[in-house]
């Protein structure tokens, strides 16, 4: 490491050490464990800034925060999984003794022995670690994949396919009372006839052209090609609009973070 880097790192460390002291003093009398609280708030601020420093370039602070984050999150996820699924779901079905030990409510049932199956399948999955019997783990995999494939097959056929198709059935002539009425009452209000009809036409044609864009086994030429072109236009307009719309939410996130830094850490009265 270069000397300037070392000096810089030392300065940062000193800065946050000072922050810890100041924060702890500010918490004195307010919090019981004021030294710990001061440390934790400083730590949160340090980690926030470390992550943000990645925007400038990859650096040791980011690397530290990143590796810390990975370790903590993996352990968090594992202990939550252990307590909620194994202790919360499995033990109450399998063994009264285990349930008593972990102080969870034992659920007696006639079919509880069925819960040995996933335990066996889970152990088969762990066979993956063995060099020679690794292939056995495919059995439990096959169970998971098969079950969810069947589930997805139906679910998507029903919700994404049948529902979406049937909701395309919209009247193209909304509230039609003859062409004379159409022109005489033409206006641009959102609930007016023209806008409603326009919306339905755009939705219908948009869906059709969009589907045509997704044809794989037909050449996109001629009329077909033109329709598929319109389809990709509609997709692009939509993507642009969604992008623009998302900006607001993302800025809110940053506002939240910066407010944390200013108010909770620096203690500015804003």
């Amino acid at each position: 490491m270069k000397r300037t880097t070392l000096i810089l790192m030392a300065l940062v460390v000193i800065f946050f050490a000072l922050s810890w002291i100041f924060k702890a003093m500010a918490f004195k009398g307010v919090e019981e464990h004021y030294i710990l609280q001061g440390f934790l708030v400083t730590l949160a601020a340090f980690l926030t800034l470390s992550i943000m420093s990645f925007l400038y370039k990859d650096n040791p602070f980011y690397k530290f925060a990143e590796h810390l984050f990975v370790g903590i999150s993996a352990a968090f996820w594992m202990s939550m999984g252990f307590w909620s699924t194994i202790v919360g779901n499995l033990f109450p079905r399998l063994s009264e003794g285990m349930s008593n030990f972990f102080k969870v409510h034992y659920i007696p049932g006639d079919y509880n022995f069925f819960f040995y199956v996933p335990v066996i399948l889970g152990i088969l999955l762990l066979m993956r670690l063995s060099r020679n019997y690794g292939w056995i783990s495919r059995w439990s995999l096959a169970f998971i994949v098969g079950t969810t494939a069947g589930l997805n097959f139906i679910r998507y056929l029903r919700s994404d396919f049948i529902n979406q198709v049937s909701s395309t059935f919209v009247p193209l002539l909304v509230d039609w009372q003859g062409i004379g009425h159409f022109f005489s009452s033409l206006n641009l209000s959102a609930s007016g006839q023209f806008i409603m009809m326009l919306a339905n036409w755009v939705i219908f044609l948009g869906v059709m052209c969009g589907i045509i864009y997704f044809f794989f086994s037909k050449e996109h030429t001629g009329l077909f090609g033109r329709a598929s072109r319109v389809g990709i236009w509609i997709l692009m307009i939509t993507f642009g609009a969604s992008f623009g719309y998302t900006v607001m939410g993302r800025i809110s996130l940053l506002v939240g973070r910066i407010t944390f830094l200013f108010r909770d850490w620096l203690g500015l009265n804003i």
Partner: protein
Amino acid sequence: MRYIFVIFSLVFLTFSAGLAQVDTLGADSTLLNIAPPAPISNLTVYDKANDHGHALILEWKPSPDDAAGKNTVMMYEIYRSESPDGPFENIGSVPSGNSRYDNIGILEKEARDYIPDNTDLYYRVDAVTINPEIRTSSEIFGPVRSYSNWFHRGRVPVLFAVLIFGGLMMYFVSVARKGAELYVRPLAGIAAVDDAIGRATEMGRPILYILGLGTADMISTIASFTILSRVAKQVAEYQTQLIVPCYDPIVMTVAQEVVKSSYLDAGHPDAYNDDMVFYITTNQFAYVAAVNGIMMRELPATNVYMGKFYAESLILAETGAVAGSIQIAGTDEVGQLPFFIVACDYTLIGEELYAASAYLGREPLMLGSLKAQDYAKAAVIILSILGIIAANFGWTAFTNIFKVLD
């Protein structure tokens, strides 16, 4: 769950109505001498159709004193018994103005609201005034039984769709198996995959393959596995480096298997080691943080994102752009497509992701299924046009075909 909530809130409602009554009694003594309301009429109880049993539906004609008339009915209380002589048990209530009650039992035998199947039951509905003492009971309806059904009649449209789609699939797969030539239009994103691997080889930099945040059973992840197997095979042939960081442990297991056998197929089993495919953590942003780090440190020539992605899509793609990698993405998560389109060089939109596996392999069986999907799409277009015509002329019979009951 919803029913528990409804029942719970109804209990709460009854309770608060009771409380209210205590207070109003003092304020308004006329409440004590309300005339009893007229009873409800035409009570019918029937088995809930297309269900797992343990559920009955009550319908009745409201009391003439509900809203009109004396306007004294506050709510209806529902009573049930296993014998016509009682004892009747209060099982729930609805506010006045209602003429239907769904008596949905809970499946566990121990539950308080367990309704036995294939057993005679008797029902009674009371019209209750603001003073719960003053009420009028209806005649007892019964016996009635609830049944469990083997077939859900409301789901026939889905069955038809399954049969039609399955048939199309079988047909085209068998056609393809016989060796018929099937045309598929070129997809830019797919062609880019081959170039990208070549580029990585020239530059001597690795290829980063991200399977997304999906679990191993998601269809998009399964499609991604197939693409990964092609990529890994080519990578093995070119002797380029491959990095596959994983979000889900099962996905990691499968990905290891996939990459391993691809290396075997390519004839370089010794070049594979388990650390090419590794697990990071099952936390969205911790995973992103680590992958960002990998991108900036290993500077991969190509980043391939295939599978399920959420808010992290843009963080990954922008960091990849900063690192100067060629980026190819594909996802079926509609909300994230805009970000991949904006930040990546090539993006497979929705269905193209599933098609990609067929494209890369060029196996007749896979191409046959693409053809089946296209025919289904053509059917959608025809059906939609028919549906639009039907909607314009008010032919509800046609649109009703598509009504799926739950």
